[in-house]
């Protein structure tokens, strides 16, 4: 391990994988399994969006559109044209990537609010097309008859096998993302946050990396869409509208976009909240889906006001401070530098 450098640790991945693997043994009911499978799908989207928001400093209010494009590409190609889902996975990744590339050219020139507008508009256009292009998407009632994914004669059906399939992909996505942020490109992206001028002076091509991260995040969303489509027998445009985009946004905001694990935790927490609300809803009358929305809104407000970086980075920085404090108490010299604090 290199001292002072954020780097990849297999420990985190190993612990997390162990949790993921053991979950079905602890909660084997199909309700929990389905929710946990969805949590995996959301994790994939959230990690991508987290990269975009936390590392490229861009906001996307249209992430659900990429998710939808991934889902519909594979649904249409595998059902209407009978292609193998493994083949259509390529399209589910490439189509969002291509659109992100085109949209990215506008993004390179748009800042702040204008960018929010562009992704918002994009999301709405895609949602409308999914709903209205009935000859291809079968419209608002949804596209059905989507085949299952098979591998070496094994069919992944909703339930335990699909849970493991989804989480295998989610883990791959997490590992790839961690690798990215711990590389020269990850540091370049982090540097943009603190000083874009200095980044430029160090030779970091800001626009190029923002574009690449946008494309990656759209591909992750596309992958999630692919997984979603083949899990269910049918999909409908309702899952890919503005509410979806806001849901993903809430996950990243809650967990914290400046850390990959933050996005993961955000996705898991929101999934857990939805389970709790669902369970409570069958006992208490006023807890409805509106209540869930109120809760998400409330979470967003609280987090932005009290923990703007999100849960995980906030906790991490707290732990770090504590560590430094105890280190100072133990007179470990390496950190004795903080004495200069007052001079800054």
């Amino acid at each position, binding site marked *: 391990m290199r001292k002072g450098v954020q780097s990849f640790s297999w420990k985190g991945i190993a612990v997390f994988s162990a949790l993921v693997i053991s979950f079905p043994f602890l909660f084997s009911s199909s309700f929990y399994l389905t929710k946990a499978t969805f949590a995996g799908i959301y994790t994939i989207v959230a990690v991508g969006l987290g990269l975009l928001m936390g590392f490229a400093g861009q906001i996307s*209010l249209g992430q659900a559109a990429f998710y939808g494009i991934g889902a519909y590409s594979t649904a249409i190609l595998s059902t209407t044209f009978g292609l193998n889902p493994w083949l259509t996975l390529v399209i589910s990744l490439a189509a969002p990537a291509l659109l992100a590339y085109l949209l990215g050219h506008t993004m390179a020139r748009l800042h702040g*609010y*204008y960018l929010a507008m562009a992704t918002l*508009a994009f999301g709405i256009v895609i949602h*409308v097309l999914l709903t209205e292009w009935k000859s291809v998407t079968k419209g608002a009632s949804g596209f059905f008859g989507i085949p299952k994914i098979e591998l070496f004669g094994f069919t992944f059906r909703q339930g335990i096998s699909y849970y493991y399939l989804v989480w295998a992909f989610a883990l791959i996505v997490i590992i790839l993302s961690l690798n990215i942020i711990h590389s020269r490109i990850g540091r370049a992206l982090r540097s943009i946050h603190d000083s874009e001028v200095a980044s430029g002076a160090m030779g970091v091509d800001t626009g190029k990396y923002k574009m690449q991260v946008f494309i990656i995040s759209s591909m992750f969303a596309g992958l999630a869409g692919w997984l979603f489509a083949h899990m269910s027998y049918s999909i409908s445009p309702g899952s890919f509208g503005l509410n979806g985009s806001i849901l993903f946004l*809430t996950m990243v905001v809650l967990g914290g976009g400046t850390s990959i694990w933050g996005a993961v935790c955000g996705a898991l927490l929101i999934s857990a909240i939805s389970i709790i609300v669902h369970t409570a809803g069958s006992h208490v009358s006023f807890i409805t889906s509106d209540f869930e929305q109120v809760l998400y*809104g409330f979470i967003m*407000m609280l987090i*932005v006001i009290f923990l703007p970086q999100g849960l995980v980075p906030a906790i991490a920085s707290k732990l770090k401070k504590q560590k430094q404090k105890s280190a100072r108490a133990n007179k470990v010299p390496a950190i004795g530098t903080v004495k200069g604090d007052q001079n800054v």
Partner: protein
Amino acid sequence: MNDSIQFLISGLTIGSIYAIVALGFVTIYSVTKVINLAQGEFVMLGGMTMFSLIKLGIPYFIAFLLTVVIVMAIGWLVEWAVIRKAKGADPLSLIILTIGTAIFIRGIAGMVWGKNSVKVEPFTNDVPINILGASITPQSVWVMVFMLLVVLVLYFLIEKTMLGKAFRACSVNPTAARLMAISPKKMSSLSFALSAGLGAIAGLVIAPIMFPSYDMGIMLGIKGFSASILGGLGSAPGAVIGGLLLGVIESLGAGYISSGIKDAISFGVVLMILLIRPFGLLGEKNVGKGGL
């Protein structure tokens, strides 16, 4: 020909609403540099509150005024309880904050009023007027009249009164404003109350045409936001032009192509315009970074 006039009229009607909502965005943005994505919820609250007040048996005109006051109070509350607490947040966080506020308000509205659309009586009778072979409902006329009224009143308020001067001082230089005994905090509250009032008026005049429901705010808010971005963020004339333009594009799209894809057409146009002129039609090049 008749068709196109008909489409134009309905486009200008809905465009007037977008314009009022967009002016609400501009009012808040120019004072606080916050983009309030909960703006559409004020419109929804306007329509729904009116419905409830009338149902309580309150006379139409009084209900109208009361609605404006109530929604303004809510706008003030939103600023005081939410926005003010996050001062100094970056644009990204502010967007998230106001989205959170929006879905919070919408969720509460859903729990209070339920999911159904409600009906509000028009201001005056319902008999359509014929102009150049196209028919226009009196309520549409009211919508446009109110839009013009709003523009006039806002113009007067901003250009001719102390309040306007204070607003502008805050937007240009909050520190200097404070030195001149203008409280940016107070102005921020006022700007939220004012634009909530604008939202309420939009909601009131459109209610008889649109059958308000708890979830109407989000789309109206986005359209108003688009209109203000189209016109160039921060420009009031731009907001009005952007709003009317968006309304007309949408109505022509719905009329000549398909009402289902009207949103795709209008937002497609928004995307195109942002591509060609990333700073909007009348915008300055350096706005849009916001929140600074």
